[in-house]
């Protein structure tokens, strides 16, 4: 048990992590469901570039569940007039809730956005099934809104999963709605669905 705790600690130290990171001392609650995972997270941004929290992850294909510590690090942000770009390093480490085997996840996320366009690329590795997952997004907001109105984004979400020398591809159109500190994403391609709810407080 002690060795496992050391291993988790080592993974957390050696693999800087994740997304999202929010304002200093801000808290985030995040639920996401995609064809591969059910994912629930709660985190606190200790600084404006480091968030740490808990994560409950369920692999929908293998029916395995994991209790993880999630560690997100904003490595670099480029703040410009009317646009922003980010580089995040992501990691989670913890245990399989059934057999206590150690599980880790590392990743990298880059994005650029202005008031109407957004591009995002995320790469992740999951140790429990030795899989690599790539998520790419192109997004467009049909109109600009001010602080108090609901913002709508139309997103083309493309993911590729590599596992056991096999690739799986998937495209899902997603609609993102956010207002104030609440964000909801809904997507479906007929066979698969996508759902995210996030709030900051």
């Amino acid at each position, binding site marked *: 048990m002690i060795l496992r705790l050391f291993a988790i600690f080592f993974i957390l130290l050696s693999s800087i992590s994740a997304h999202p990171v929010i304002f200093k001392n801000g808290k985030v609650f995040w639920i996401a469901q995609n064809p591969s995972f059910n994912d629930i997270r709660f985190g606190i941004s200790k600084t404006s570039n480091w968030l740490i929290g808990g994560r409950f992850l369920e692999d929908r294909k293998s029916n395995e569940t994991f209790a993880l510590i999630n560690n997100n690090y904003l490595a670099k942000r480029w703040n410009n007039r009317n646009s922003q770009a980010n580089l995040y390093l992501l990691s989670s480490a913890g245990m399989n809730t059934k057999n206590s085997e150690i599980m880790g996840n590392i990743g990298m996320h880059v994005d650029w956005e202005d008031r109407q366009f957004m591009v995002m690329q995320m790469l992740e590795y999951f140790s429990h099934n030795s899989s690599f997952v790539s998520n790419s997004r192109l997004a467009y907001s049909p109109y600009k809104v001010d602080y108090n109105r609901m913002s709508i984004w139309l997103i083309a979400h493309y993911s590729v999963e590599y596992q056991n020398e096999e690739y799986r591809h998937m495209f899902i159109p997603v609609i993102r709605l956010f207002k*104030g*500190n609440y964000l909801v994403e809904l997507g479906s391609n007929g066979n698969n669905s996508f759902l995210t709810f996030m709030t900051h407080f």
Partner: protein
Amino acid sequence: MKNFLLFILLLGLGFSQSKVSIQDKEIEINENEAVVEVLGMVCSMCAFGIGEGFAKTDFIDKSKFTDGVSVDIDAQYVQLSLLESTNINPEKIVQVIEDAGYDVNLLFIHQNEKLTKFSKDKLGILQPIASNVSNKK
């Protein structure tokens, strides 16, 4: 000489209006207010963190705007209502913006009947670059 006097007169009128300009938008700034141009503030979730940060400070007059803070995402600025009794340190305002994850480009503070414009120098240190500025970037 007449032209010079006219120039001084117009300049004086400009001061009394207390207007500043951010991204070509004219903003009226009253006594005990500050206007901050925020780089990277592209969405309401970004702005939410900035509002939360100022809500925890001791220099904001929450009776004006929304809890003392008004956000304009189009022109990328935040307007703050400052407590009259507080002689604000501009670094405190910059710290709140940076703790939210964003950068300050320009800062205007109108206190003690003086409007001062601040900008960061090459070392990233906030410097007053003009006093009683009006409608100038």
